[in-house]
């Protein structure tokens, strides 16, 4: 792997839901300003692992985590860590666009406002910048007061990404962010990822292997809670080291 700074590191991570062990002894280092794709069949643990990276599973019944996860030098499961603070640093974009039933402007400004920021000029600047970063500004600049729900699916998803960017996180987690979108919207999001990775560390869960191949620098293949292989994306898709990875990406699994 390259000489980039490590933004995210997992050490001996086990995750349990009651008796069931969803994640088995995972070690992983993710470079800053890169895109990492998590791939694997349904139930392999990739989404669980993504969600533990900003403590989304804390309130799931029976959830328990063993091991350590460090993001930007901070151990995120320490008692002293405030989850709200962690989520400022680690944003999340979900499978289905989930804008709030508010105006476009309010959606993007939301995170800043709940942080207690009242400086209107500051908020406006962040809103504009965020919308520009997701290439939505030109499409919505004249209708910022319009309901976000009136936007198309693809626009809504870019708005959700803008909402995440507004609080300036270091890491953005994306859980199948394009699975509900048409090919054009998908391609816009993929294009966006290439821009965003200049500033942010991105981790994306995807079932679309061509997408993982197109957008990511590194790819992690999960199977039955284990991290089977984690390597440069071009290596994974041309000459993976493990037979299980080969079987999965060539569609011969099971």
């Amino acid at each position, binding site marked *: 792997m390259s000489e980039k700074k490590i933004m995210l590191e997992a050490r001996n991570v086990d995750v349990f839901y009651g008796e069931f062990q969803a994640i088995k002894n995972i070690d992983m280092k993710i470079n800053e300003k890169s895109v990492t794709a998590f791939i694997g069949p349904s139930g392999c643990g990739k989404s669980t692992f993504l969600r533990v990276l900003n403590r989304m599973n804390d309130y799931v019944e029976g959830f328990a985590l063993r091991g350590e996860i460090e993001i930007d030098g901070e151990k995120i499961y320490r008692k002293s860590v405030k989850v709200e603070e962690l989520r400022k640093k680690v944003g999340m974009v979900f499978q289905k666009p989930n804008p709030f039933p508010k105006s476009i402007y309010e959606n993007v400004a939301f995170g800043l406002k709940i942080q207690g920021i009242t400086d209107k000029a500051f908020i406006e600047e962040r809103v504009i910048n965020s919308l520009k970063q997701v290439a939505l500004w030109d499409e919505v600049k004249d209708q910022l007061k319009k309901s976000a729900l009136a936007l198309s699916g693809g626009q809504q998803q870019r708005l959700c990404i803008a909402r995440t960017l507004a609080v300036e996180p270091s890491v953005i987690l994306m859980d199948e962010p394009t699975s509900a979108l048409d090919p054009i919207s998908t391609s816009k999001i993929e294009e966006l990822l290439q821009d965003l990775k200049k500033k942010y560390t991105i981790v994306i869960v995807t079932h679309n292997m*061509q997408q993982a191949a197109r957008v990511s620098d590194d790819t992690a293949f999960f199977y039955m809670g284990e991290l089977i292989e984690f390597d440069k994306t071009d290596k994974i*898709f*041309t*000459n993976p080291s*493990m037979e*299980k*990875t*080969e079987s999965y990406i*060539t569609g011969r699994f099971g």
Partner: protein
Amino acid sequence: MTQLETTLKALKSSTVEMITMAKIQLQKSKEAFLNKDQDLADEIFISEKHLNNFELRIDRDCENIFALHNPVASDLRLVIAILKVISDIERIGDHAEGIASYIMEMDKKFEKDLFEQLRFTKMYDIALQMLEMLEDAFDREDLGLARKIFKLDKSLNEIKLAAPDVITAYLRNDSEATKQALFLFSTIRKLERVGDLCKNIAEQLIFYAEAKVVKHRSEK
């Protein structure tokens, strides 16, 4: 079996079939050369067109696989390998056709003694053996067999290197035979090139299949 697996299996069979076609072309050129059989040489020109069309067909199949199946890992390597291999096989066919065109212009048969001194028949047999080994190696993904082809290529190079001295001595005794001798030496060069192409094909097979073998080892 997935749809891609079925398609790749058919693609591999077509490639083996193309190797067989090239082998038959070379076999015919051998018989036609040794016996100065111009009718047989004529057949080579006709079959050469089939071989060229076959290459185009496989080429199109590969293009479709890329476009429709997005192959990755060993599937991707197989399609890349086959794309390169078919162009080499087609060139083997071209060499057989080139030899056939010499045969059409030859005005007399060579003496057996000269063939023996040059190890000309042996050279042909080795080239044909290489093609036969490629058929099996490709069919069974037998890397051991593919590697044996490298050794045979060296034998062909060695025979070619020795040829100028033998031909020069022959011309000293029969200075009228210059044109014939040129045909003979050109054919020897073509057979040596066939050896190089067979070696390339074997390398492509190894490129495709070796990663799989290494991988299997690493997971044990």
